[in-house]
């Protein structure tokens, strides 16, 4: 009914018509005050736009599928395992890996804010931080999974992890069938961001093929 409130926030807009102006104004004030260095700002942005993202986590998962020793270390101490591939840092200091099995599916949420394992997954997508996911993931995880196109059989136990502390969870999806001889690099392509949050599964070889075809 209300025009001014009907629209949804997918991060692409703002209620504040002058938000861009106000942010620019804050940024220049902080630079003028000497609190932030403009060049550092650029590097920070570049880091999370190009370097730290779900490709990191995909490399971790692919390695774990191929290297049993690494898989054990990942389950034992995920921060150390991810760190051994060079993925360390903010919002990933206490990383825990949750392994999906034919019996058990894991899924991660932060109902209170937006905690997320940055070093392996980058910055979270808008839906992860939004009210619909935060409210429903803990109370109706199977319904949420359906909305993501995943029909979880009744026999599979669903485990939802609400990140209420500084522990950061990443899901290790199951390795798809038909990938016996695949290289680590190729396997990593099957590992989507959503499969490491637990709202998706790893792609099958056919799905990957279809995704590549325009």
């Amino acid at each position, binding site marked *: 009914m209300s025009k001014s409130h009907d629209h949804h926030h997918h*991060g692409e807009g703002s209620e504040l018509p002058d938000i861009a102006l106000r942010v*620019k104004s*804050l940024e220049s004030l902080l630079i003028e*005050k000497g609190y932030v260095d403009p060049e*550092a700002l650029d*590097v920070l942005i570049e880091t999370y736009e190009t370097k730290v*993202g779900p490709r990191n986590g995909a490399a971790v998962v692919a390695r774990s599928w191929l290297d049993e020793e690494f898989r054990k270390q990942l389950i034992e101490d995920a921060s150390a395992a991810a760190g051994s591939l060079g993925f360390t840092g903010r919002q990933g200091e206490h990383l825990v890996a949750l392994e999906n099995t034919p019996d058990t599916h894991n899924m991660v949420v932060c109902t209170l804010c937006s905690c997320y394992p940055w070093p392996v997954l980058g910055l979270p997508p808008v839906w992860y931080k939004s009210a619909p996911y935060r*409210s429903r993931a803990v109370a109706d995880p199977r319904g949420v999974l359906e909305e993501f196109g995943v029909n979880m059989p009744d026999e599979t136990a669903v485990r939802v992890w609400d990140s209420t502390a500084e522990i950061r969870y990443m899901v290790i999806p199951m390795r798809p069938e038909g990938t016996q001889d695949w290289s680590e690099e190729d396997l990593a392509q099957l590992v989507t961001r959503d499969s490491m949050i637990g709202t998706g599964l790893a792609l099958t070889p056919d799905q990957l093929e279809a995704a590549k075809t325009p």
Partner: protein
Amino acid sequence: MNGVHDMGGMHGFGPIGVEPVEPVFHADWERSVYAVSSAIGPISDWTLDADRHSTESIPGPQYLNASYYEKWFISLCNMLVERGYVSAQELASGTSLGPAKKVGDVLKAEDVADYVSASGRSSRSTDTKPGFEIGQEIRTRNINPSGHTRLPRYARGHKGIIERIHGVHVFPDTNAHGQGEQPQWLYAVRFSAKELWGSNQPGRTDVFIDLWESYLEAA
């Protein structure tokens, strides 16, 4: 605090709108909010817990209507003014009207890589032993503090099982309010969906929540 940010189990927020191909940022102002918030970290005098409390303290009607980076922006502005980094007039004008607050070393471009990969662990060493053991049944306390807490409303007064012991971690409920780190044992606690929501989902569903020792009592 029992705020609108405590969303677990709420109804009526509609479908989960997933963007098929989502950029990291949707606008330049989002990039800026992200970058200044991050860059200010090393010289700020507030904790991550205080930062979270600042965000959850955005009034409910505004919180629910603001996008993610809008909330960051609102919260950052509030912190900067409350703690004397900038004045409200400076914020309004975008121009410095007086001396800056005395701060430590400002983050430089060449130090960003180290900063991003540096650890900010919340775990603390201890010579105490955990009060609960793995497999033990506990009940969460029914607390309703007006300040910061990480015990969600939906998990209060419920029985669960200690699943993991995470070690001793900074306690957000005090650390958010300048009352010190007061580290406590932290546990991953398993709750059945039936216990939390009163009805069975098809198949077995469990919810795991990271909870500090003082949130818990033996069942």
